[in-house]
């Protein structure tokens, strides 16, 4: 009994001591300097090296996190609190400015714009745009196939019954993916306090544009007149908001088509569908 005990502890202690010593020495002489953030992130990780995150081990995962190649949530072992801690650690630089939201500069839903032809092909805006710029009469407006909806990784966009993308301001992180995705570049990222939005991009005036779309800006210029001087200017038959701080809702009151709008939450919410259907 005692014999066995001595033997066991001797052998184990010996093995442990030997390798402990080797590793300690190695640690001292074979050390390589690295980004200290990696170390810090690694400490927050479980260290099980299970590989479930798709990276070859916790350290590589930490490196990938610091490099921004992956997301903390990919680690299935860490509890939610740890994931948040990592996200917080990595995100210290971000998130100081005012929140911005993607806004669409078109209000031409399917019942507002004439459809001139029948498109058949992939249901994708990019693909459809190539085929004669889409089937609708206005070549500047939304095509309605929802590339932006698919591009948004935060589920902040959904297509409404007018086939227009509606952005949920609460969910939108202003990542800009929709701006990239739209072949017509209809989105811009606007500070949430900029509530006056021109929902049209067509550089035509009067009857020429009214023939194409019922909610387009027809360049009547009333909004520019009703706004404080110099705050809105007409350029290329469209109002340009030069000073968003000074404008208020009043300049939208006389807009005959509703192309310029004062938007508190989502776009296209205030307009009942019935109004658009003749």
């Amino acid at each position, binding site marked *: 009994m005692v014999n066995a005990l001595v033997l066991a*502890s001797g052998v*184990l*202690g010996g093995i*442990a001591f030997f390798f*402990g010593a080797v590793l300690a020495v190695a640690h*001292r002489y074979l050390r390589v300097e690295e980004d200290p953030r990696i170390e810090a992130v690694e400490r927050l990780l479980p260290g099980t090296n299970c590989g479930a995150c798709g990276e070859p081990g916790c350290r590589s995962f930490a490196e990938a996190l610091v490099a921004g190649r992956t997301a903390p949530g990919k680690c299935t072992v860490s509890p939610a609190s740890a994931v948040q801690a990592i996200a917080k650690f990595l995100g210290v630089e971000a998130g100081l400015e005012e929140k911005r939201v993607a806004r669409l500069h078109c209000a031409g839903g399917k019942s507002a714009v004439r459809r001139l032809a029948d498109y058949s092909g992939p249901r994708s805006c990019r693909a459809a745009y190539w085929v004669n710029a889409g089937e609708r009469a206005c070549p500047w407006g939304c095509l309605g196939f929802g590339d932006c909806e698919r591009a948004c990784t935060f589920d902040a966009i959904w297509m409404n019954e007018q086939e227009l993308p509606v952005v949920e301001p609460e969910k939108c992180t202003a990542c800009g993916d929709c701006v990239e995705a739209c072949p017509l570049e209809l989105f811009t990222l606007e500070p949430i306090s900029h509530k006056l939005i021109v929902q049209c991009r067509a550089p035509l005036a009067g009857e020429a544009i009214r023939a194409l779309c019922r909610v387009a800006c027809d360049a009547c210029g009333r909004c520019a007149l009703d706004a404080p001087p110099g705050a809105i200017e007409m350029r290329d038959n469209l109002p340009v908001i030069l000073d968003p701080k000074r404008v208020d809702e009043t300049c939208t009151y006389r807009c005959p088509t509703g192309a310029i709008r004062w938007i508190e939450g989502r776009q296209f919410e205030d307009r009942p569908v019935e109004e658009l259907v003749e």
Partner: protein
Amino acid sequence: MREREPGPWRLILTLGGAGWLAGALLVGVYLATDPSIQRNRARALFAAAQRVLPGAERIEAWLFKEGEPVRYEGPRDVPPPPGALFAGYGPDGTLVGVAIPAEGPGFQDTIRLVYGFDPQRRLVIGLEVLESRETPGLGDKIAYDPDFLANFGALEVEPEVVAVRRGEKRRPHEVDCITGATISSEAVVAILNRSLEAWLPRLERAAERMRERTGA
């Protein structure tokens, strides 16, 4: 945020300490369980030997030391070391046969088996598969198919054991294969042949010694 680096000695001591404790604990567990484990193993071996030596009542383990067969004198509830043979004696003390463990590749993985051999009549008198990973319902029949196992009740080993298709066994040194599991059956035969080839030359003398022992 960074904690103070502990010195290398602290690391080594922690690890060493943990190792030491673990070792101590394991010794305890080992001492507590080892007898049962050994007994289980020994029993399993002796029981299998008994089953492949019909009529044997007493089983003894034998070892070869420097080519000489020596009776294994260890306690009954400790399994003999690998390479041991098991001599089975009838109620009257006569040598019924020798149980020999053997192994070799099967259809899927290594097959381990033990067979009983009667050195006098030069017959295989029983066979049991101890471990196999053959296909369930097909290859694993080598372990329980009565027709197949019946082949080994009195199987001649000269010139060598031959596997034939089911129902074609004509001669006493042939083995009827299991339909649909020819490979596994052939593997058993191959293991048998290889083992016999290794043991037969030595078995003659060993059997004499084994008989002597009982006689004594």
